[in-house]
């Protein structure tokens, strides 16, 4: 039988006296290099996950399972997105070529008039008022389906190494947004909704991951929470964004700063924007933004009488680009303003912000449901009463107008 032994320390000739601790000076430990570092890292991750579970008082193995689930979801979502992108590009090529085939002239790819492809319809995006697009047909399509709000993805901005804006005395945007996000999640849960947080700890999450959470969970709404920092330290207030173009250099700079870690290439962003600007989701997002903004202003005014409603604005934030549901980004306070910074340090004020955001969601959901019900009742009445037929017909007419628009018949 083979027997091999690694040299063992010399055996003591008498009982070891350990009254003085054994002290050895050795070179600083260097990890062995025989095993692949990635392999060691994987094993180490298991130990770290177990400790995170212990700290969070969760069953051991939960973090590892969550991590694996998240990885699988992101892989699936990325695969789906890639496939969708291919289909989209293919469709765009076909649509771009179609007029060329018909008229023999190429439709300019940019300019005053451009056709954007979408799975459901095509519209002119060169709208005179980009903030309030004329999407009558699209609105009717969206509201013809009486959907309720169930799943809301809450995205506390920043996290981990990305602290966001901060103040010298230790208030960090990432901590404030997480606190408000958790409070909002509780509030929505109490109301019977299913909130999902993109992060529940101080961890760094990329923008694609945040987006993936919302898309994979098939969320009904997406709310990204941020705290503003304005060059004018006396400025204060709340503002809410939805996806759209902006001519304001400050807003473009703000969006660029928030988009830094997005991981989306320029081409990705442009392709997504082309579809989404024309999407019905944009109008839904604008309504959600309006509802949340009004609610923030009304609720917070009781605690913060000098608060200013800085309005509902559109800006090309990457986190709003790739989400597939009505999505907004709320700047719920200004950390650059001393008075608001002091208020943000008070838990009760942060609860107020969460309550206001929740109220905005409830209002949006109620309004949406009311519109849907009203439309349903119109349709019922149009069938039951001849004098209501006109309104029912209008809906159908609007729909068919949209369809004609899609087919390119309408002048």
């Amino acid at each position, binding site marked *: 039988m083979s*027997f091999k032994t690694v040299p063992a*320390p010399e055996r*003591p000739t008498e*009982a070891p006296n350990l009254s003085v*601790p054994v002290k050895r000076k050795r070179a600083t430990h260097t990890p062995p290099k025989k095993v692949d570092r990635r392999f060691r890292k994987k094993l*180490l991750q*298991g130990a*770290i996950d177990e400790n995170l579970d*212990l*700290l969070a008082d969760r069953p051991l193995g939960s973090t590892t399972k969550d991590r694996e689930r998240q990885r699988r979801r992101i892989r699936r979502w990325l695969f789906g997105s890639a496939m969708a992108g291919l289909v989209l590009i293919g469709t765009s090529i076909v649509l771009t070529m179609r007029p060329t085939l018909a008229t023999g002239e190429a439709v300019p790819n940019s300019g005053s008039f451009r056709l954007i492809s979408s799975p459901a319809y095509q519209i002119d995006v060169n709208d005179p008022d980009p903030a309030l697009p004329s999407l009558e047909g699209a609105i009717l399509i969206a509201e013809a389906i009486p959907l309720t709000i169930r799943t809301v993805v809450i995205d506390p901005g920043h996290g981990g190494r990305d602290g966001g804006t901060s103040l010298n005395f230790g208030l960090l945007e990432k901590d404030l947004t997480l606190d408000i996000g958790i409070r909002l999640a509780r509030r929505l849960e109490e109301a019977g909704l299913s909130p999902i947080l993109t992060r529940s700890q101080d961890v760094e999450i990329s923008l694609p991951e945040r987006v993936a959470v919302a898309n994979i969970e098939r969320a009904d709404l997406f709310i990204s929470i941020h705290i503003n920092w304005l060059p004018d330290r006396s400025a204060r207030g709340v503002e809410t964004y939805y996806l759209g173009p902006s001519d304001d250099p400050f807003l473009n700079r703000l969006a660029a700063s928030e988009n830094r870690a997005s991981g989306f290439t320029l081409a990705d962003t442009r392709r997504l924007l082309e579809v989404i600007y024309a999407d019905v989701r944009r109008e839904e997002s604008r309504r959600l933004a309006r509802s949340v903004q009004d609610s923030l202003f009304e609720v917070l005014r009781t605690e913060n009488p000098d608060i200013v409603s800085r309005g509902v604005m559109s800006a090309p934030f990457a986190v709003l680009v790739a989400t597939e549901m009505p999505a907004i980004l709320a700047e719920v306070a200004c950390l650059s303003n001393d008075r608001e910074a002091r208020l943000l340090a008070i838990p009760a004020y942060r609860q107020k912000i969460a309550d206001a955001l929740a109220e905005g969601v409830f209002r949006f959901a109620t309004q949406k449901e009311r519109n849907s019900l009203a439309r349903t009742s119109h349709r019922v009445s149009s069938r039951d009463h001849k004098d209501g037929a006109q309104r029912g017909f209008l809906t159908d007419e609007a729909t068919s107008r949209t369809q004609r628009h899609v087919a390119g018949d309408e002048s």
Partner: protein
Amino acid sequence: MTESKNVFVGIDLGTSRSSISTSDGEHHMVESFVGWPLDMVARKVLKQKVLVGRDALENRTMLDLHRPLERGLLKEGSDKDQQAVRELVSYLMEVSGVSQARKGGAKVRSVIGVPAEALRVNRQHLREAMRGFVDHLIIVSEPFAVAYGLDALLHALVVDIGAGTSDFCVMQGRYPTDEDQRTLPNAGDWIDDQILKILEETNPDLKASIHTARAWKEEFGFVGHSKKVVEVTTPISGKPTEIDITAALKQACEALVPPVAETMLDLITSIEPEFQERVRNNVILAGGIAPMSGLAQALEKAMAPYGGGNVQVAEDPIFQGADGGLALAMDAPRSDWEKLPA
């Protein structure tokens, strides 16, 4: 702004001995005993508020003596034991210079090993006990720390025999789960008990303490054949008497082999058959009992009917847990450390 220095620390809090290895190259060991003077007289004689290690053991008659890590775990619900662990850790931090570094602004990031089957509550007690000494803490299973330190991460079986427990961990290239690990109460302390029981049976008037039995085991313990007779002098009916303890030592030490071998084989047979041979040939013996004469050979012999195997005694088995902890601490990404405050 300059970033504060990080000091990485691996700690093995053992039932019998505790050791520390630091990224500054410090390695220290102390016996896991802590004692407080019983009264004013003891305080005057000892001139210290608390004694740690061998000092505490040697002056135990004047002390409220604690061995806080029962079977390698912090005793549940005992404030005194929690305090004793803190004294022990404080001592290790002082002698290794970690406390001074921390006072100087360094962040201390520590990995501590616990028995493979330590419960959640034990880990939480340990976490509480470490508060104030380290800034960030990771608790891992002791045999995993040993395996990591030795780079025995694939197709290996680590058997860590300490004073309180024997811990087993089969490494299959993943973080070990409950199925990959076992803990036995049969370890060094158990051998000490066996030695005393056997000697008291043959010499009913023999009065020897568990500490004496431990010293005999550490000096003369063996498995298999001994070339020399072991004779010690100990009081019997108050009279110093020379007695032959060879047979008692052999019997007590060999009693450890069957449960350890059985657990090893149980773990090996639980893995996929095609990897069993590789694991049998890659058994690593660590812990304070590992260097015991003849133990590795006896375990190889026990594996012979199952296809044989190879048992290696880890170099420096006493520090292997702390060194493994240090390796883990140094490899853990900074972002993960930030999530694990002490």
